[in-house]
C-alpha cells in the first residue's frame, strides 16, 4: 500500500497556508512596535541580567505582566516570569521562598503570615494599584440606576437564598422582573472582597448565583437576561460597554458611579479595592529586583492603564515609595 498522496497534499497545503499567512502579515491594525512606551533601552553599562519570579492572583497578574513587558523594553536581559497559581497559591510559594514577588488581590492572611515568619521570609507589602468592583446590570435595566449598600446586601446575602427572587422585593417601585445573579467564583479575591464589603464577612453570600472563573462569562450572563446583575472588575465594564451597565453605589454619601477618579479619591466606596504586590526583602538585595520595583512605582500610571486598572494617587504612591525605601534600607542598598 502506498502512502496516501491525498493526505500528504492536504497537510502540505495546510502548512503552506500557515506559512503564507504568517509571511503576509495579518489583520491587525498598528505596526509591530511596542505600544507607546516612553522608556528606552538602558545603556550597555547599566544592563542588568537575572530572573525575577512573580506568582499569585490571576486578577493582579495582568498588572505585573504589563510591568514586566515594559521593563523588558528597558532591561531586555532580565527575565521576568509571572504565574497565576492564585493568591493563596502565590503566598504558599512566596512563604516557602520560591518566588520574589507575590501578586495578591487581598492582604496576606494570618495563617499565611505565620508560615512566612516560620520560614524566615521577611517581606514588604506594597499597595501597587487600585481596582474598582463594578456592580453591573443589563443595559435594558432602567430602574436600578443606583443601589445602596443595604439594598445590595438584601439581594446578595446568604439569607436571601431562595427568598429574594424578584426586583420588586428590593424596592417597592421596581418592576416585576426576575433577578439573575452572576459573579466571581468562591475562590477568587474578587469574591472575597465583594462578600466582605457587601455582606460583612468573606464567604457570606447566597449560594444560588452563577459563579464563574472567567469574568467574560459573567458579562454574558448579565447581558443575556433583563433582570441580570453581576459584579467584576472595572476593566470588564470598559471593554463591554454595550453589553452591561455599571450602576451607581450609595455607600452612605450619595450615589457614586465607578470610575478612575472616584476609585482614586475613595468616593466610590466601599467597592474600590487595593491590589497588592508582596516583595521578599531578601530579593531586594539583587539589583534587577530593585530596578524592577522602582520601575513599577515610577511608571505606575502607565502600567495601570495598560492593564486596565486604576493608578495610585500621589499620596498612595508616596506611601508605596516609603515602603520601598524602607526595604532598600533593610538590605543595606
Amino acid at each position, binding site marked *: 500500500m502506498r502512502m*496516501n498522496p*491525498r*493526505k500528504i497534499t492536504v497537510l502540505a497545503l495546510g502548512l503552506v497556508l500557515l506559512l503564507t499567512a504568517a509571511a503576509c502579515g495579518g489583520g491587525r491594525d498598528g505596526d509591530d512596535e511596542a505600544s507607546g512606551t516612553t522608556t528606552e533601552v538602558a545603556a550597555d553599562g547599566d544592563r542588568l541580567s537575572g530572573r525575577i519570579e512573580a506568582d499569585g*492572583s*490571576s486578577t493582579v497578574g495582568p498588572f505585573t505582566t504589563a510591568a514586566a513587558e515594559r521593563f523588558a523594553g528597558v532591561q531586555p536581559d532580565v527575565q521576568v516570569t509571572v504565574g*497565576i*497559581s*492564585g*493568591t*493563596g*497559591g502565590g*503566598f*504558599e510559594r512566596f512563604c516557602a521562598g520560591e518566588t520574589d514577588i507575590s501578586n495578591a*488581590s*487581598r492582604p496576606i*492572611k494570618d*495563617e*499565611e503570615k505565620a*508560615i512566612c515568619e516560620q520560614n524566615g521570609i521577611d517581606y514588604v507589602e506594597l499597595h501597587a494599584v487600585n481596582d474598582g468592583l463594578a456592580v453591573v446590570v443589563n443595559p435594558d435595566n432602567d430602574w436600578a440606576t443606583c443601589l445602596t449598600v443595604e439594598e445590595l446586601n438584601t439581594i446578595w446575602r*446568604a439569607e436571601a437564598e431562595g427568598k429574594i427572587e424578584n426586583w420588586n422585593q428590593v424596592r417597592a417601585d421596581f418592576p416585576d422582573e426576575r433577578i439573575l445573579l*452572576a459573579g466571581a*467564583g*468562591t*475562590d*477568587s*479575591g474578587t469574591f*472575597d472582597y465583594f*462578600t466582605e464589603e457587601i455582606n460583612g*464577612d*468573606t*464567604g*457570606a*453570600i447566597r*449560594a*444560588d*448565583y*452563577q*459563579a*464563574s*472563573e*472567567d469574568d467574560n*462569562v459573567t458579562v*454574558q*450572563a448579565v447581558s*443575556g*437576561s433583563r433582570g441580570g446583575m453581576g459584579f467584576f472588575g472595572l476593566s470588564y465594564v470598559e471593554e463591554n460597554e454595550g453589553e452591561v451597565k455599571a450602576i451607581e453605589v450609595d455607600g452612605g454619601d450619595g450615589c457614586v458611579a465607578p470610575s478612575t477618579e472616584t476609585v482614586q479619591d475613595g468616593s466610590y466606596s466601599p467597592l474600590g479595592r487595593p491590589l497588592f504586590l508582596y516583595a521578599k526583602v531578601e530579593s531586594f538585595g539583587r539589583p534587577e529586583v530593585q530596578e524592577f520595583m522602582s520601575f513599577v512605582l515610577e511608571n505606575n500610571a502607565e502600567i495601570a492603564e495598560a492593564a486596565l486598572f486604576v493608578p495610585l494617587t500621589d499620596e498612595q504612591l508616596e506611601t508605596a515609595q516609603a515602603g520601598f525605601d524602607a526595604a532598600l534600607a533593610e538590605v543595606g542598598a
Partner: protein
Amino acid sequence: MATPELTSGARPRLRAERRRWGEDVIKGVLALCALVSVLTTVGIVLALLEPALEFFREVSIREFLTTTRWAPLFEPASFGVLPLLNGTFLVTGIAVLLCMPFGLGAAIYLSEYARPRVRRTLKPALEVLAGIPTVVFGFFALTFVTPLLRSIGLQVDIFNALSAGLVIGVMLIPTVASLSEDAMTAVPQSLRDGAYALGSSRLQVSTRIVVPAAISGIVASYVLAISRAVGETMIVLIAAGQLARITFDPRLSIETMTAFIAATGTGDVPRGTVDYNTIFAVGLTLFVITLAMNIVSIRLVRRYREVYE
C-alpha cells in the same frame, strides 16, 4: 528434542534447550514499564491521602457523605459531597448516552460500510476532533450549544449540565469510534465471508458477527470513554457551572467534583486549611468511585470476551 511445556496460564510453547538470558532481561525491562503505572497510582494515593485524612479529622466522613449541601467556602460552611457526585454523574450520564451509540455507529460505518480510501481519510479527520483542546470545547458549549438549546425552546441556565454533557459526549465519539473500529477491523474476514456466503445482509453481518467478535475492544473503548467523561475538568468548569446542588434536571447549573477541584486548586484559598483540603477529600472520593466502577467493568469484560483462534 524439546518437549512442549505447559507453563501455567500461558499457551503451550516449544522451548529451546539453551536458556537465553536475553529473554529474561527483556521480560524484566517490560515488567518495569508496567511498574510505572503502579507507581503512578501509588503516588496519586499518597498525594491525596495525607491531606484528605487531615480534612477528615475536621469533618467527619459521615457528614461528608450524607449532608446534601456543598458550600465549603461560604459562611456558614457545609461539607456534603452528594451534590458534587450528583453533578458528576449527571454530566457523565449525558455524555455516555451520546458517545456510546454514536461512537459505535461511526465505527461500524467506517469498518463495514466505507470504502478503504474513504476510511483512510475519515478516520484521521474524526481524530482531529479528539485533538481540540478542552478549553475550546468548553467555550463552544457555553457560547454555541447553550444558545442553540435556548433557540429550540429549552429553558437552560447559562451554565447547565446538558451543554457540557453533550459536548463531552461528542468529544469522546472519536475515542470510542477509533478504538472500536480498530477492534472490528481485526475480526477475521473469513467470519464475514462465511456469513455472506450463507446469505446474510450487511446489517446482519455487522451486528451479529462483527460487533460480538470485537466486543472486547468495543467495551475497552467504552470504559476509556466513561473514565474520561468522569475525569473531564475544563469543559465542565467553563460550561456546567459552579452551583453545587442535587437535581436530575440537566437544564440547570450544577458543579462536578472535577470542576470544584480545579477551581479551588487554582484559586485564592490559602493552603493547608480545611477549605483547601476539600480538594483532596473530593479527589479521593472520585478515585474510589472510579476504582469501584472499573472493578465491575473488568469482571463484565472477562465474562463476555470472545477469543478467535
